[in-house]
């Protein structure tokens, strides 16, 4: 149990980078960008191919992010300059990326098991005294030794945190404020001399850059890149954003981005728990995810409607019991 939860947090921290990207488009830009399903794989494919061809893993990971940035730029261009509906622009790009991803991979799945990934390198640096120390602590509590290394978790925590802080800072700069205003009041920010087209493209590009970066890291963590690994990714990202926001609030930008990261980790934990239920299969996860998102989207409205109904009923009752006639 502890080992599987450890794995959930580990991958959750990496998926959190993807969730931050989804947050940028869905929440900040108010742009439902479905490119994510494709750009996540693009990131994975670029990282895998680069590593296999001898590129240092760190550089390969950066290249993955750049590939996603370019994909997002194209989606943004199609939407703003081509005046194509945001959803459709994303779907078109996602579909186009499927073919491109296959081309990059050269085959449906590319294995990295024989290659040295960024995490293998981290593990080598980390293995020894530090792992022994943490595992020693676990031993005190009677827990088993972990299959992977603490280094991955701690370093990825730091990387994700840095990305969060940079995002927070960016959204408070003059350019960042204008990007947020696009999702809030586009007409206003245009009348304040902001080029909304270019800023939208920049926002969608950054978002997909983060998504692809996350994809590149997940490929290295899992040891493979698969052309189908991005299916439903946007819903997973959305689930992370919604779960995080519901549990931790969105009062400030810093709070919201932290909520998104924690949401991504909690989502992974929910998945891990769900997979322990006997009658559920791995393939059911997408359905569960979709149901979580649907419930999270609908329940606040139902609760609100019920509260409103109750309030009206009570008002009527108190008027009736008061015996007075109802005057408008």
């Amino acid at each position, binding site marked *: 149990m502890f080992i599987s939860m450890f794995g959930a947090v580990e991958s959750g921290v990496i998926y959190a980078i993807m969730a931050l990207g989804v947050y940028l488009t869905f929440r900040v830009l108010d742009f439902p960008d479905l490119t994510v399903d494709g750009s996540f794989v693009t990131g994975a494919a670029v990282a895998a191919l680069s590593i296999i061809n001898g590129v240092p893993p760190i550089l390969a990971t950066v290249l993955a992010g750049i590939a996603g940035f370019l994909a997002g730029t194209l989606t943004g261009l199609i939407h703003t300059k081509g005046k194509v509906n945001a959803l459709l622009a994303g779907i078109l790009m996602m579909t186009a990326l499927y073919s491109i991803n296959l081309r990059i991979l050269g085959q449906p799945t590319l294995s990295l098991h024989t290659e040295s990934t960024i995490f293998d390198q981290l593990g080598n640096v980390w293995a020894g005294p530090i792992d022994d120390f943490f595992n020693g602590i676990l031993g005190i509590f009677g827990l088993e030794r972990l299959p992977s290394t603490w280094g991955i978790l701690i370093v990825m925590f730091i990387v994700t945190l840095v990305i969060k802080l940079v995002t927070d800072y960016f959204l408070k*700069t003059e350019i960042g*404020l*204008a990007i*947020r205003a696009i999702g*809030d009041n586009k007409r*206003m920010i245009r*009348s*304040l001399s*902001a080029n909304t087209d270019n800023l939208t493209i920049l926002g969608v590009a950054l978002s997909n850059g983060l998504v692809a970066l996350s994809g590149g890291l997940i490929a290295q963590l899992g040891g493979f890149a698969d052309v189908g690994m991005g299916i439903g990714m946007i819903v997973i990202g959305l689930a992370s954003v919604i779960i995080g926001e519901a549990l931790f609030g969105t009062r400030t930008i810093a709070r919201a981005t932290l909520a998104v990261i924690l949401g991504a980790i909690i989502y992974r934990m929910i998945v891990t728990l769900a997979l322990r239920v006997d009658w559920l299969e791995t393939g059911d996860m997408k359905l569960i995810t979709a149901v979580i998102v649907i419930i999270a989207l609908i329940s606040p409205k139902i609760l609100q409607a019920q509260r409103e109904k109750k309030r009206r009923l009570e008002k009527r009752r108190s008027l009736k019991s008061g015996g007075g006639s109802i005057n408008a």
Partner: protein
Amino acid sequence: MLDLKNISIVFNEGTVDEKKALNDINLSMRKGDFVTVIGSNGAGKSTLMNVIAGNLFPDVGDVLINKKQVVHLPEYKRSRFVGRVFQDPMAGTAPSMTIEENLAMAYSRNKKRRLSFGVNKSRRQMFKEYLETLNLGLEDRLTAKVGLLSGGERQALSLLMTTFTDPDILLLDEHTAALDPSRAELITHLTKEVVAKSGLTTLMVTHNMQQALDLGNRLIMMDKGQIIFEASGKEKDRLRVEDLLREFQRIRGEQFEDDRVVLG
């Protein structure tokens, strides 16, 4: 400062719905001019605003700001020179962002946006001082979300956001029409104050004839896409609402058809 030359624009050309929204408009404003524009629905007031702001491109004609041709500049480029307050109090501010963030965005209107903090210590102090001039207590609520403010407060903030960077041209698009009388009174008062203080070159569209007479040094009346009457200086000061209605009837040979201008 602002020169409109032979501006014409036709909507739905060649169809049964063809409408000459603006028909050979010429208007020249000197620096510091405050022109009020009246006219019934469909007279072309809003179209005129949109042509100046760059939301609409005229079929023919020139728009010059500071003698510079800007007729082909899109809105986001032209808004470096042109500030605009909309009729809808919700239109001029971003509701889920804070008061100081809104002001910071407006402060960047005539500058290049950079990767430095939109709100910093010195700017916060400056925003505070500007907000104090509104006398609404907003200076103590810098980090409140603008969506929490009332319509009147939001419109006052919009007005401040548009004017505190001294735009070359200030466009006021019936900016008091959606407010209750006392709030409208406040915004009118603030408008008068800020335009006088900064000497802004202003074009104000209004449905309210009395307001058009009370404010500004020039008045134009529009109908069917044309400027049909113009008054300025002493001549404008002597005008009353009845004079304007009589004038309209004399020129057009018909009753002014919009009650809102008299009652509103």
